[in-house]
């Protein structure tokens, strides 16, 4: 293949700078020693990271987000793993329709989901509760959990399971000792990707969160609505750090390119 010419490289450089700039600027401003928004020109300071400690609502929102992400991803997997196994191995009537239904939360605008859940949970008396948040997040992260598990289950060599059966394994033992270990990388990656989706969701959650169950993105959004100051940049920097950690984890277990390829086309 031919190399890129100088024009192409200039285009590429500008493109990458623009892609990185907003994220970089948030992280840089977070280290400002000033009391107002500015790039740290004379020395870095951690004062705005320390300042987070004076805002317990941010700390609490962080824990809510963390717990919500971890729990809803886990619950989503409990439903998604059996469903993925069924879709991967059986050709049954309604299979395509089921798969489409399970992936549909990717297609439905999150604002619509937020409204639907708000309506549903207020009329069932769960409005504003943590349980409602969990259920709603299970739905929106389900497609991600399903996809990665499905890819792992489809790619698995099924004679390995037959071998285990011929040796006397069956039912739960077969699943626990052979099937699950074989699809585990996909399951863990599905969990991590689902976690990131839940951890980042604003659009749907903003409808459901109440004081006490506000997630970090919701807290940040409400804060930005009133004023933008260095505090929210330091909080953002922390969020970016958490996501990067999950990203590295994903890359280790699964390869980021495969994960992102799974995220790339919501329609299908």
């Amino acid at each position, binding site marked *: 293949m031919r190399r890129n010419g100088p024009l192409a490289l200039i285009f590429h450089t500008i493109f990458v700078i623009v892609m990185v700039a907003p994220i970089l600027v948030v992280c840089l401003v977070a280290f400002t020693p000033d009391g107002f928004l500015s790039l740290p020109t004379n020395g870095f300071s951690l004062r705005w990271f320390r300042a987070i400690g004076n805002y317990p609502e941010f700390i609490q929102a962080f824990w809510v987000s963390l717990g919500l992400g971890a729990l809803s991803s886990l619950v989503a997997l409990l439903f998604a793993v059996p469903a993925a196994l069924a879709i991967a191995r059986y050709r049954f009537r309604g299979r395509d329709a089921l798969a489409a239904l399970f992936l549909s939360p990717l297609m439905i605008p999150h604002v619509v989901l937020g409204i639907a859940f708000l309506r549903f949970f207020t009329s069932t008396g769960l409005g504003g509760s943590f349980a409602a948040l969990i259920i709603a997040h299970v739905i929106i992260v389900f497609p991600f959990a399903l996809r990665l598990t499905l890819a792992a289950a489809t790619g698995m060599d099924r004679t390995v399971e*037959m*071998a285990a059966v011929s040796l006397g394994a069956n039912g739960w033992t077969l699943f626990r000792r052979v099937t699950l270990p074989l699809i585990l990388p996909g399951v863990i990656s599905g969990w991590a990707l689902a976690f990131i989706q839940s951890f980042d969701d604003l659009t749907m959650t903003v409808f459901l969160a109440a004081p006490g169950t506000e997630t970090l993105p919701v807290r940040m959004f409400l804060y930005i609505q009133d004023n933008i100051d260095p505090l929210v940049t330091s909080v953002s920097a922390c969020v970016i750090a958490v996501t990067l950690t999950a990203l590295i984890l994903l890359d280790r277990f699964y390869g980021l390119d495969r994960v992102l390829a799974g995220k790339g086309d919501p329609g299908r």
Partner: protein
Amino acid sequence: MAYLELDRVAKQFGAQTVVDDFSLSVGKGEFISFLGPSGCGKTTTLQMIAGFLDPTRGAIRLEGKDLTAIHPAKRGLGIVFQSYALFPHMSAAENVAFGLEMRGVPRADRAERVRAALAMVGLAGYEDRHPRRMSGGQQQRVALARALVIKPSVLLLDEPLSNLDAKLREEMQIELRQIQRTIGTTTILVTHDQNEAMSLSDRIVVMSQGRIEQIGTPQETYEKPASAFVSQFLGKTNDFAGSIDRTATPPRLVAGSWSAPAPAGLNGAITVSIRPERIGFGEAGLSAKIVTRIFQGNHWLFQCESECGPAIVIRQNDGTAQPAEGEAVRLAWRPEDMSVRARASA
């Protein structure tokens, strides 16, 4: 009495019949091969015995008991897959121990039996190695040890050697035969390699398009093929059109200028099958011309054009002079070396 019995077994996938009217009795300790071209239904038959597929019709019995009613996990058969199907997340020893564990064999016993099984397949010292870090031949041995350690009533092998290179395959064939002889496990081997089937089995089941063409010892199937398919599939063969003349006294079988006393039973148009290595160059017989002569080390291969069509002749390289290309020769063979089938006259 038959140890393992397949009684008119058939398998359909939708409208497609993949195995039909398959009947076979296997004696205890016997080594049977299913031989046939790819797609003829060997794996399907094996999987019905293993229980991964249910027969559409017919019965499968082990020591007189109906096998089809038993879940595959409870059949106690040992299976080696073409892909080996080793558990990638377990070491060699853990792979071999798995079946014992499922049977509730106490830990101490297990360790001892696993070590013995691995030693039997020549893998002593490889206990902690993971499958990914083993060669194809070693993985194959682990798969074999894993299937044998549970003392299976029948050992099922689905093209176990086809992923190995030629030399290793030959070694493993010999080893497999020795192990099977030593422990006496009833064995069914699926293969599309006629040499493998011949060198390993007590009896061969030749299959084509889901049906049994012939069941017999390697010698029987090679020397007395029951059908054109069998004679073609089991190595090179010559088919000559001929006829039997019952008006002559005594009745004679004639193929071109070659003739012999007619065998009993047949009349009219026939096909004579004769293996290339059983044909000699003589004074009388089928007249032919040598088209090409190929030297292959321990033997010579001649492609001839005879009065009954193309013919192949193989001669041992015993140092004697051989006819040259273009030379006119006469092809002759002993009547007992040929097999004769009726031919639908054109």
